[in-house]
């Protein structure tokens, strides 16, 4: 029986790139959708507000695993015969991260003191100008640390994309394990890869938090 070799290590390294790619898709997609949902969540329109709140509740109340299955089988329902794994995984993780990012960003936008809104209104800025010139720049400063923190969650949760057949780190580990059955070695190496990706992000997030000193204000 073959044992864990450099070929396997290389295979895992390539899979780690797919993990990064999937993370990027989920973060960009989830960021765009999440931002729209965050704005809807604080909009003046009541229906929009409630819809966004329900969307967030549903996403945050369902396990990612179930979301992935729903999208995987749901795409088939709307008529596609075969679902490429990257599509199912990408859409699933996008939906998932949008629900969480929306709530993080809503909190940051609402944490901008209300006097800032009032002052902007007194200066006769339009709602759009108020948002882009006054509120968002301040909210952005507060949002950076928790957003980077959530990026770590996305990286870790891409591991679940393996259930729809997407070959990223965790799935690559499973595949190798199926051929040489050395689970302990393999998954330690896999965990090492994840740690190498996530730890710098965590440290960065902590650093940002300290710099902004948000928690001590």
């Amino acid at each position, binding site marked *: 029986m073959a044992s864990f070799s450099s070929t396997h290590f290389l295979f895992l390294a390539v899979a780690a790139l797919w993990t990064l790619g999937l993370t990027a898709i989920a973060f960009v997609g989830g960021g765009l959708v999440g931002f729209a949902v965050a704005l809807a969540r604080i909009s003046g329109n009541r229906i929009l507000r409630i819809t966004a709140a329900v969307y967030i509740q549903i996403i945050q109340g369902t396990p990612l695993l179930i979301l992935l299955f729903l999208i995987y089988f749901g795409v088939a329902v709307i008529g596609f015969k075969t679902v490429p794994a990257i599509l199912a995984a990408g859409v699933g993780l996008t939906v998932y991260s949008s629900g969480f990012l929306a709530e993080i960003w809503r909190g940051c936008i609402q944490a901008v003191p209300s006097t800032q809104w009032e002052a902007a209104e007194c200066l006769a800025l339009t709602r759009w100008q108020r948002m882009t010139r006054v509120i968002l720049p301040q909210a952005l400063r507060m949002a950076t640390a928790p957003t980077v923190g959530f990026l770590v969650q996305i990286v*870790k949760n891409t591991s679940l994309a393996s259930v729809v057949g997407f070959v990223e780190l*965790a799935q690559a580990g499973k595949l190798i394990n199926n051929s040489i059955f050395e*689970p302990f070695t393999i998954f330690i190496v896999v965990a090492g890869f994840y740690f190498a990706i996530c730890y710098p992000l965590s440290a960065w997030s902590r650093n940002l938090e300290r710099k902004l000193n948000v928690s001590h204000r």
Partner: protein
Amino acid sequence: MTAPKGLVSTGGVMGYHFDFAALLPYWREFARGVLLTLQLSALSTVLGFVLGTICAIGRTDGTRLIRTCIAAYVEIIRNTPLLVQIFLVYFGIATLGIHVSANMAAVTALVVNVVAYTSEIVRAGLESIHKAQLEAADCLGLSRPQIYWHVILRPAIERVYPALTSQYVLLMLASSITSQISAEELTAVANRIQSDTFRSFETYIIVGILYIALSFVVRIAFWAFGQTIFVRRRKLHTPL
């Protein structure tokens, strides 16, 4: 399509016909899945809370070696996916030559995971206790265990209780991942039912709704529990 109204929605999206009636005979299995998910998460929550609190105390008051070890443990757990941790625990236990059921391995993995998060949350609570409180307690002649229990631990937990609640709701949702080592909880039940009936989409819709309901139930349970144990909050209606 001649199906009884009410049970079957014939409103297909692009020709797809939803058939929830096919899943009706499986309600017992769904119920068992819900029960097992609750059991798994309740057990992991209790163990995770106790061990996590001990770790938090060790992290703040332990010797240098203990502090470093706990810090390293927390960083490792928080920066690797639960799925990989589950595999490591599952296969790790097997490598040690101990034979445990998938459910036991699932609980172990969930506890190993949630202890790290709990300890960080509780530590934040412990650090929020003002030094003057300890000095005041000392002046009142309270013993060290008394100070720890009444002045440090209880107010600290009360302060971080909302964060703990969120963490344990997430834990309940994350327990779905243990289906990957065939622990018999709700998601695993769903996987089996959908392969039996081929009504995959409907199965996961039902399970999704069940999870949403479960997360509400868990939240309410935590709120009610908080109301009973934090007497001060109940009487004064103010957060600490």
